[in-house]
């Protein structure tokens, strides 16, 4: 629908048409409308950056200059000095009408470049067309200079020198894993209990650090002995933490100064002048002190997130805003009535917009795997308090409402559902889904708390603080629970398990012997031989990824180092160790399982058609797979339609799925992380199913090289779940969502027509009851019709704001590739 036509329709008429994005425009305040439209979209459109997006060269230049200057300093101190130099000198800006500030580039249209992470990423940046600031030639020269400085010195370069060469080559082939084993590109949890629940400002932390320094210095001046030896390094780390906290306070002070300068010299509107003064006061209060107002609470959180992003790439955004900002919201809106609900709504909406505008340069594989967005900012809402009572509040409602007004694809929400959640809240959750946002995803809180205790031994009260560490995995926000480095590269391309089991460990796509030689599949006479090969390949893939990541984590404080993150972690402030050091962390690792369901469907097809029914021989199957099913269409269709598929409540294939998962769970308990804890699996996909389309060869489930893989987690193949939504839930309910893995993603598509009105809500609620009764831990919904999506493909300009759920994240439909779009459209619409 064109903007002009939409303007003439009433909200009721637009609702009837499902034109949610135009409704949002009509309903939101003028400020939110301006700020939402002011955002430069940083997510790559199907892989390419939008016109006008430029890489920011200020941060890399400032950082490198100072890093080079302090070359004799130990790692954490050296990085702290370089980062402080950035905070003191990078260009800052305040957008008109903004009440919250902080961005990690020097202009709103810039993407940040993490240049000390990996040389291969730096080389990609040099070759990326269209993103160099003008004059391009000068920028390219600058980038080349910076690249040559960092070549061989980035975190990944340093790690590659200590990795086993065979592991390194296989990992870097891109066939089995995703990501980089360094906190330069990791995801860090925030120690919200220390900062927000503990009501600490940075000056309070500096006081704690000073006391620790004093104590340690007393000891280093005292009785000689081995116990004082580690203190020398820790003293330098404490210096680094203190130095960076002071720089962060100065950084906020720069915003305060700018806000006052604008108010006193440029602004003529008295209301805006007042806002700018309030903004200045906000930045003078936080992060130096604990926040006193709702605005300051949000501003504090945002400063922490932005500075963390100036320190490392941060691919996710673990947060629980309705929980940690609730005390200040309650004070300002309910108790002292300092601001109205509408004023608070403007702040909540802007808080989401400030996160939406954040974007860093990502290599092509990351852009393809996360089409349309720059990271998975999944914020956690709802859940329980540490005593088990319902934690939902007015701010939960405000976030759910604000989401429908600003309609951003990032951040999205994961909602911690539990039986005590009120109907009022559930209705708001449903409204977001009905408005086609694709979020919140619904998480089963009691079950995931149990899961956290089962896999990682988090005590009950700590487990109850959990946030989404990335798209899916719960992680506590406590001293020993918080995770500083999400193991991004422990992400397995699981379809390779069955592919390698069939090809004797050889990868025909990257043309390399990858896994162990488990035997010539043409000679298999019994399904158990194939299954045993599958187990060996599964273990090999998991081991290779985990070994690499474990080493990356262990060496990270030496090869990278995170002074700012450490300064906000209770355990690091206390010990003087880098936050990334495994010491003091309980451990919360998981292996993300991309492209998982293909294993069960493929194994079931071989078992049925080759070994049970003997309709085809292994030789015929292998010939067809090697020909990429070319010329074997009838046989291919037999492998698709003549063998049971996951998601239809058919025990034949479902039992195989459980058998595979139990083997994985057994192995997950055998492997240990650097903290000594387990490595459970977590099936989910982002848009890795598209990225791997050209990397995974033909499979016995009927898929060809080039086809998208299934949309992920434990979601059935698009169009293959033919027995309705209850059958999908029943298949998924056969999985033990506590003991079989860390979490299991389920995508479902519902009909917007069926979900309309009160009847739609009641149907959905009944569906959710079954979902909970069957013990599933996750579900997320797409509720946009074929008609809208096809029209958006045809006329993208008119459908810029249509949002869809891709996998663990949402994206604007027009920003994802045609292949991903088709994949989403072909997902079964479930009538419930």
């Amino acid at each position, binding site marked *: 629908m064109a903007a002009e036509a939409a303007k003439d329709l009433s909200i009721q008429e637009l609702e009837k048409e499902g034109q949610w994005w135009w409704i949002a425009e009509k309903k939101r305040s003028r400020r939110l409308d301006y700020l939402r439209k002011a955002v430069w979209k940083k997510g790559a459109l199907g892989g390419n950056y939008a016109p006008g997006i430029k890489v920011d060269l200020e941060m890399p230049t400032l950082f490198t200059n100072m890093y080079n200057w302090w070359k004799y300093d130990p790692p954490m101190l050296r990085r702290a000095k370089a980062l402080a130099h950035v905070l003191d000198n990078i260009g800052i800006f305040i957008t*008109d009408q903004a009440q919250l500030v902080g961005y990690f580039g020097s202009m709103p249209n810039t993407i940040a470049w993490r240049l000390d992470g990996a040389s291969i990423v730096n080389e990609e940046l040099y070759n990326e067309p269209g993103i160099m600031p003008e004059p391009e030639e000068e920028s390219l020269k600058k980038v080349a200079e910076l690249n040559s400085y960092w070549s061989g010195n980035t975190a990944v370069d340093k790690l590659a020198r200590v990795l086993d060469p065979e592991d390194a080559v296989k990992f870097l082939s891109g066939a089995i894993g995703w990501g980089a084993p360094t906190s330069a590109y990791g995801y860090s949890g925030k120690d919200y209990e220390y900062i927000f629940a503990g009501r600490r400002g940075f000056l309070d932390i500096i006081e704690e650090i000073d006391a620790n320094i004093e104590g340690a210095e007393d000891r280093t001046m005292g009785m000689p002995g081995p116990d004082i030896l580690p203190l020398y390094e820790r003293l330098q780390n404490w210096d680094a933490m203190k130095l960076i906290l002071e720089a962060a306070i100065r950084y906020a002070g720069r915003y305060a100064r700018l806000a006052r300068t604008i108010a006193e010299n440029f602004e003529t509107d008295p209301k805006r002048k007042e806002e700018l003064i309030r903004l200045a006061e906000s930045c003078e209060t936080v992060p130096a002190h604990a926040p006193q107002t709702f605005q300051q609470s949000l501003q504090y959180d945002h400063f922490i997130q932005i500075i963390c992003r100036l320190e490392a790439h941060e691919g996710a955004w673990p947060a629980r805003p309705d929980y940690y900002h609730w005390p200040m919201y309650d004070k300002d809106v309910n108790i002292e009535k300092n601001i109205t609900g509408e004023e608070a709504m403007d702040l909540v909406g802007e808080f989401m917009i400030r996160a939406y505008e954040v974007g860093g340069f990502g290599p092509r594989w990351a852009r393809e795997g996360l089409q349309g967005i720059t990271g998975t900012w999944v914020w956690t809402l709802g859940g329980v308090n540490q005593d088990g009572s319902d934690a939902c509040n007015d701010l939960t409602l405000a976030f759910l409402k604000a989401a429908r007004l600003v309609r951003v694809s990032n951040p999205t929400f994961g909602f911690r559902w539990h039986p005590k959640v009120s109907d009022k809240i559930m209705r708001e959750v449903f409204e977001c889904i009905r408005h086609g946002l694709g979020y919140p995803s619904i998480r089963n809180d009691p079950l995931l708390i149990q899961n956290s205790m089962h896999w990682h031994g988090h005590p009950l009260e700590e487990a109850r603080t959990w946030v989404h560490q990335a798209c899916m995995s719960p992680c506590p926000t406590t001293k020993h629970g918080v995770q500083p480095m999400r193991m991004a590269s422990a992400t397995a391309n699981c379809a390779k398990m069955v592919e390698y089991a069939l090809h004797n460990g050889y990868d025909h796509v990257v043309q390399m012997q990858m896994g162990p030689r488990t035997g010539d599949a043409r000679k298999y006479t019994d399904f158990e031989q194939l299954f045993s090969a599958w187990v060996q390949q599964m273990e090999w893939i998991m081991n290779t990824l985990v070994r690499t990541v474990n080493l990356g984590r262990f060496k990270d404080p030496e090869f990278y180092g995170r002074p700012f993150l450490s300064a906000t972690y209770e355990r690091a402030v206390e010990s003087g160790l880098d936050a990334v050091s495994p010491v003091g962390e309980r451990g919360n690792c998981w292996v993300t399982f991309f492209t998982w369901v293909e294993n069960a469907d493929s194994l079931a097809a071989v078992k049925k058609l080759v070994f049970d029914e003997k309709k085809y021989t292994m030789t015929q199957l292998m010939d067809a797979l090697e020909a990429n099913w070319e010329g074997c269409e009838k046989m291919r269709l037999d492998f698709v339609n003549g063998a049971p598929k996951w998601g239809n409540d058919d025990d034949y294939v479902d039992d195989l799925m459980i058998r595979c998962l139990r083997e994985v769970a057994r192995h997950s308990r055998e492997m240990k992380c650097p903290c000594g804890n387990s490595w459970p699996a977590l099936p989910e996909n982002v848009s890795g199913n598209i990225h791997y389309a050209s990397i995974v060869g033909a499979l016995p489930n009927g898929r060809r090289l080039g086809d998208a893989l299934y949309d992920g987690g434990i979601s059935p193949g698009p169009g293959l779940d033919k027995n309705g939504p209850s059958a999908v839930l029943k298949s998924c309910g056969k999985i033990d969502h506590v003991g079989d893995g860390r979490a299991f993603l389920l995508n479902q598509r519902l009909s917007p027509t069926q979900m309309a009105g009160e009847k739609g809500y009641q149907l959905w609620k009944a569906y959710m009851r079954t979902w909970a009764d069957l013990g599933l831990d996750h579900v997320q919904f797409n509720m946009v019709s074929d008609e809208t999506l096809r029209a958006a493909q045809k006329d993208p300009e008119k459908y810029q704001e249509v949002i869809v759920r891709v996998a663990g994240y949402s994206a604007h439909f027009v920003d994802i590739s045609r292949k991903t779009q088709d994949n989403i459209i072909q997902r079964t619409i479930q009538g419930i």
Partner: protein
Amino acid sequence: MATECKECKSFFPMNENPEKGDCVQRVVDPRQAYYKARPVDAGADASKCGTFSKK
């Protein structure tokens, strides 16, 4: 004597140290309008600055 930043309309000295300050500029890009700031020294050479404007 060469022109210095302190003579420029965009220069705003810091209260605590007038030798240092911010260069504050108004920018209107295709999507939004904003004020940006970057630190400059009061005595920095402004003779080659394309956006110098006398106070």
